[in-house]
């Protein structure tokens, strides 16, 4: 099985990995140690102290906080609440639901008609990072995208001890 150095995985996270190695990652069987290396690269990169349990996005993580609770947290340290909840319900939201708001982001005729579809931009209430853009119809419930089975993943899939969790 192909393996990669911690430095290479850190470059992958930064988007600065050379193409030859990236291509090898794409074309060769997957390296099962990646998750551990990935966590290490991210932990070294973030400014917060909490332990990363699972990355959710470029600036969003499930972390274990000082009280051993698992929460969804932004790069900047802003916590969105329990990891089982939909973090978007605790975000700052801007909805592009007018033609004027849509033409701020796309040329005329190249954005949706807001009678059919709107853009919902979810920001971190502290730092203003845009974590997600939903593009549903009006009325659509806020989507709870992802409920990971972290225990099964750690224990059965990558053979790592599950981080402690206080509920």
């Amino acid at each position, binding site marked *: 099985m192909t393996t990669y150095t911690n430095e290479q995985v850190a470059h992958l996270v930064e988007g600065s990995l050379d193409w030859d190695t990236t291509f090898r990652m794409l074309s060769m069987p997957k390296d099962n140690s990646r998750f551990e290396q990935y966590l290490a690269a991210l932990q070294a990169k973030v400014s917060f102290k909490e332990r990363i349990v699972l*990355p959710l996005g*470029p600036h969003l993580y499930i972390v274990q906080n000082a009280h051993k609770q698992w929460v969804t947290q932004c790069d900047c340290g802003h916590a969105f609440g329990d990891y089982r909840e939909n973090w978007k319900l*605790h975000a700052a939201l801007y909805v592009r639901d007018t033609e004027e708001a849509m033409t701020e*982001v796309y040329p005329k005729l190249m954005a949706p008609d807001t009678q059919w579809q709107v853009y919902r931009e979810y920001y971190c*209430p502290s730092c203003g990072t845009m974590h997600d*853009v939903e593009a549903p119809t009006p009325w659509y419930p806020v989507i709870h995208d992802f409920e990971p089975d972290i225990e099964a993943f750690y224990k059965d899939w990558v053979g790592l001890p599950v981080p402690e969790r206080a509920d």
Partner: protein
Amino acid sequence: MNMMTSKEVGFADLLKNGQTLKQFRDGIIERTQASGHYNGLEKLAFRDSDPIGYEKLFSKLRGGLVHARETAKKIAASPIVEQEGELCFTLYNAVGDCVLTSTGIIIHVGTMGAAIKYMIENNWEANPGINPGDMFTNNDCSIGNVHPCDIATIVPIFWDGRLIGWVGGVTHVIDTGAVTPGSMSTGQTQRFGDGYMITCRKTGVNDEPLRDWLHESQRSVRTPKYWILDEKTRIAGCHMIRELVEDVIRADGIDAYEKFAFEVIEEGRRGLMSRIKAMTLPGKYRKVSFVDVPYKHEDVQVSNAFAKLDSIMHSPCEMTIKPDGKWRLDFEGASRWGWHTFNAHQVAFTSGIWVMMCQTLVPTQRINDGAYYATEFRLPKGTWCNPDDRRTGHAYAWHFLVSGWAALWRGLSQSYFSRGYLEEVNAGNANTSNWLQGGGINQDGEIHAVNSFEASSCGTGACAVKDGLNHAAAIWNPEGDMGDIEIWEMAEPLLYLGRNVKANSGGYGKYRGGCGFETLRMVWNAQDWTMFFMGNGFMNSDWGMMGGYPSATGYRFEAHKTGLEQRIAIGDSLPLGGDLDPTRPDYERHIDATAVVKRDKQCMTTEDCYDNHDLYLNYLRGGPGFGDPIDREPKAIENDLNQKFLLPEYAQKVYGAVFTEDAKGVFTVDAAKTQARRGEMRKERLARALPTREWMKEERERILNKHAAVQVRHMFATSFALSEKFTKQFKDFWSLPDDWQLLEEELGVPSYGAKHRMDLSLLPDVTTVVQVEE
């Protein structure tokens, strides 16, 4: 005196084991369900005892399938087949389960299998009989074909007088003789206008097509020359593969071949599960996508008043990846099928999904029905992806399928991202449109139809480590190719006045989606010519990921009475190149001021008249973006500006780029000023935002008051009518009172099909094949 033959029509004993094909298939299904392994194969005896022999057999068969495809496609004249590679050959075992498939449009891994299973379930072996040298043709969408233009030729393979398998070949033909020309036309609203429809018909004996079939089929379509050569392509490929199988059996023995033909499917089942465990992450993923169906507009001229309404396709997907590596794809809550040509049969979904998966989760040569056996599909009956009415039209089922699968891209990509396989993340794909289609009398004076396949090179979705590819691919054909201008100009009476990358068509993000492209076409040397548009316009189906924006939507541009003939004669300026910025249109400055121009979001139209020198813009869409745009590298923005992939206004507004432009038009982005501007943008974002729960209170009021456009209410009403679970989730989320409801009948739009429907299974002497939870 009419003497009947004394030959008994009945049990044919094709397998020489005393079983009918149905009994044999029932046994396989039973053993699979009982053991959890395909055909009860808990051990792969051949593979484990002779791994080298097994692999050699695999290589011979797979190599032969690919070789047959590459050779046979040279017979075709249609650019769709010859240039774009819209064909595929697949080898099946005796019960129609796919053993291996070639490259190409491998959506057909299961569609021809569904046709074989239909023949088995409906006792084709007794009548019309299955013999060596027979050919069967199928394009019936109500038994598993994707859309009528995918014509399949299916040939049984016998060894020593015994049926041991089947080979099928499919090509996407240029015209199916539907109400309107082109292979995926919009003018019809039901199967009865969808074109020539063939249900597993015996069309050849002794390796020769039957003359009645040739005469009937060739006059049933507008493009007989292409049709004839497409059929020769399919037959040649099937016969090459049949010979290959015979050669393999002569070399390796029938026992080895038959063991392989079953073990490789079980191996495929295990392969998908191990790939899921190696690549993804267990849990629940929820994604959704939509497609606009704007049929109310006057430029959609259909023959039924009940089809004249605006509606929306709703495709919610809950993807559950289980700890054992199995997965379940549940489309509970999907909207109802409709009076248009975008409905999809369940097999188009369950089979078609692998053409997508081979580009992400299973990039392997071993695509076969094993993957189907490792997947639980739930496609509720009555939805757009499992219609319960035999009247449904399917000519462009892809329009919904591609968009429905966008949800799967995003779900899988979430798992790759969380696990650290960033190189695999893909925000999605483009809505593979526009489809330029039409017909009339071409430049050679012949009745003709056109179906541009430039859509096979749309932008791809952004990755988590790099931008998407510009004008590179289509989800439905992993080897898509936009084709050469010179070839298209021979196939279509349409001259190119431009072929350019489409600025701003890729979704913005830290990594942007790939841009699509646009070609400006001028009608030339045609007579009585028509064309129409087909694509997304009012909505996009491909969201960005993790802060990236969706790709741009489509729009249409067409111009009539252009005066271009005169302008060319006197050497005046002409509209050339791309429609760079639709906010500031430029084409109109190079045609007569009195020209009739349509520039709007109505990207779904029916046949309209075009004179020579009229214009048509074919805009192929871009892919969605990944990550917050204000994370994008200033150098990448600079590059986009200088290559005209991005308009300066949006470099400022979306990316926060601060830049200068020199006298030669070269842009330079100032990294420090850009960083400062982005700090301000963060504050501006928060200033205009509300806490989500505050916004929800406002939205809830709008729902209580039923304040939304009719197409939005129609979509929800059809989903509510089909799914109590979705209705409950919706009402719970918005805390709606128990008595709140939304019914189709209160919308004031036609609701034919809402209550009264008739499934194909209700026809006499028809057994349908169900391969999903309904």
